[in-house]
């Protein structure tokens, strides 16, 4: 098992290198000059701009910039130790290659994602302060989805062909087809504007005392979590229905029925347990869906999470933040897939992880 996990983690390395390459060159190919974006003040002289550009390494070829972004290693042709001596970086001149190598102390590999252009905060801090909000929202949506989707799917399978079954299937198809943002608009209108029961956006009511207020938090999370949950219920009910239908035809279910167990026991204890196994395979890739859904839902509901951060950063062309969020999202996706494969092997002994 541990050998399998290690192998999978090693396999993730080329993928992550690919993600970093693609996102880095994509962002670098964007029109516009990041140095000008940082120095829009007309009082800043052109010479200062060029110095800044040189300090940031933006005058260098893209591969050199990529190495710097990834490892924090700064490379300069010639002896440039004097120029960079005033910074807190260790520089050394290798005369053999006629190159100066500096250690800027940063680099993605050392968990330093750089500095945000708009707020001048470290990118990692900006993302870290947003992660709890995203986790709070996505897990709430997922839990509601699981709690509703699984029983609906199982019941619709055991009542195959009934009105209930058809309703659940209808809901599953419509739930997949309805755009999340439109559903969000309708919910905001109904509950936030027309009935005025729930707040239309935000994570909490801003107050002076800044106390944690559970009721207030719950009121804020209800609508965005509902939007996310609708997608989940649609996917999960459809999935559980198909899996349960398969399990229901097996011998051990017939045995359970013949023993005289209550139908509820047969469905929810005997059938569901086996039907749940394949669920492990979709929960990992589901992280991608969660992150994607979060972008739209968070943007509409002004939820201060990672998705909205990505959106805002892309709009403001805050490239270090964009790169950071993409890297973090990819790591989450890869870990999610690995986790779901391991989980699958753990709960189903028939699946061997080699």
């Amino acid at each position: 098992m541990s050998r399998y996990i290690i192998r999978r983690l090693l396999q993730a390395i080329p993928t992550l290198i690919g993600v970093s390459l693609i996102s880095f060159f994509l962002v670098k190919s964007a029109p516009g000059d990041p140095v000008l974006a940082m120095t829009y003040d007309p009082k800043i002289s052109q010479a200062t701009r060029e110095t800044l550009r040189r300090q940031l390494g933006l005058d260098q070829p893209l591969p050199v910039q990529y190495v710097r972004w990834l490892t924090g290693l700064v490379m300069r042709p010639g002896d440039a130790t004097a120029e960079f001596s005033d910074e807190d970086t260790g520089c050394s001149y290798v005369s053999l290659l006629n190159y100066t190598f500096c250690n800027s102390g940063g680099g993605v590999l050392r968990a330093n994602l750089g500095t945000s252009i708009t707020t001048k905060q470290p990118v990692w801090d900006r993302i870290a302060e947003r992660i709890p909000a995203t986790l709070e929202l996505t897990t709430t949506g997922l839990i509601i989805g699981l709690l509703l989707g699984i029983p609906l799917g199982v019941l619709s399978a055991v009542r195959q062909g009934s009105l209930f079954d058809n309703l659940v299937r209808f809901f599953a198809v419509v739930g997949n087809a309805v755009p999340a943002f439109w559903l969000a608009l309708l919910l905001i209108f109904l509950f936030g504007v027309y009935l005025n029961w729930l707040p239309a956006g935000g994570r909490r009511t801003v107050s002076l005392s800044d106390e944690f207020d559970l009721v207030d938090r719950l009121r804020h999370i209800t609508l965005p979590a509902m939007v996310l949950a609708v997608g989940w219920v649609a996917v999960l009910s459809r999935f559980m229905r198909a899996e349960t239908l398969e399990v229901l035809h097996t011998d051990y279910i017939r045995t359970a029925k013949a023993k005289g167990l209550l139908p509820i026991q047969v469905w929810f204890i005997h059938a569901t347990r086996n039907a749940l196994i394949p669920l492990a395979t979709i929960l990992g890739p589901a992280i991608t869906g969660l992150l994607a859904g979060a972008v739209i839902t968070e943007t509409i509901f002004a939820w201060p999470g990672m998705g909205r951060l990505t959106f805002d950063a892309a709009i403001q062309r805050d490239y270090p933040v964009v790169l950071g969020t993409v890297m973090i999202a990819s790591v989450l996706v890869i870990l999610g897939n690995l986790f779901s494969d391991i989980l699958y092997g753990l709960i189903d002994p028939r699946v061997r992880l080699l």
Partner: protein
Amino acid sequence: MSVKQAEVSTTSPRGHIGPAKHLEREPQSYWRLALQSLRRDKLTLTAMVFILVLATLAALAPVLTDLLIGVGPNQTNPDNALAQPYLGPYLKWHLGVDIRTAPRMLRESGGVSHWLGTDQLGRDQLARLLYGGRVSLTIAFVAAFITVVLGVTIGTITGYFGGRIDDLFMWFINTMVSIPGIYLLIIVSAIFKPNPITLILFLGLLGWFDTARLIRGNVFKVRALDYVMAAQALGASATRIMLQHVLPNSIPIIIVNMAIDIGNLILVESALSFLGLGIQPPTATWGSMLDRAQNLLFLRDPVTSAPIALHLIIAPGILITLTVLALYLIGDGLRDALDPAMKNV
């Protein structure tokens, strides 16, 4: 091949081996069976008709707007902004229930009948829906075509040859699917402000990964079959085997996948346009018509305090939902028709 078999069995000299005369039926081919099963599937047929009608309406948008409304999709009229749909009052007028509202609305709009109302700039919503349908449907269909062409080509080649090519492409695909698609699209479109053509390219170039993986899996299965080995033994070239023997086996997957893909692309395009990143104003798409609709939710009539912009939110959303729903249903129906083993799953 099936035709010959049927003939052999029915004209066999020992008549009792073939089916009895009254059980005889026409020889069936794969596509005829599929068509037959589709013909019985009312739901899928309804969905197909819906998409056809929608596409026709969108294609005839200029004619229809001239005929029904008389103003273009981008013609503003600030004096008549946020007018309510004219359809209801018009019907009431002609049924004699309410003879005041409709003429008053006509006066306000300067004689233009805005059947589905106007938006915050006084542009006619029906015209925008029709023209928006053109853009939305074209983008989704063309982008889906690109994803299918790329996905099928790359999936077939990697699946057939395996080895280094497969490793390289799978590395690329695994990398790309590790970045949540909407992140990539948001970044790409925020950076390169797309017009309809570049948006089609972005959607197409970033959307073929799943298709390629699906096709690759199928090609792996087919490659191991005896008839492929027979073709190889006969000395057929790799290109010929792929086009002649392997590709036809993927056609059901391609067709089903394409229908669902178009639905997904409509959703993605509308989400991007809703976020203000897709098609830029003033061009209407169903998604961009909902852009900044959030602010419209809170608009109320100062006198009656009734919401006055609801019609702007309902209509585009319903159209997106129904179109995507129809395409998903078509995908499901085609899967049932083309792959009898998948039925009722």
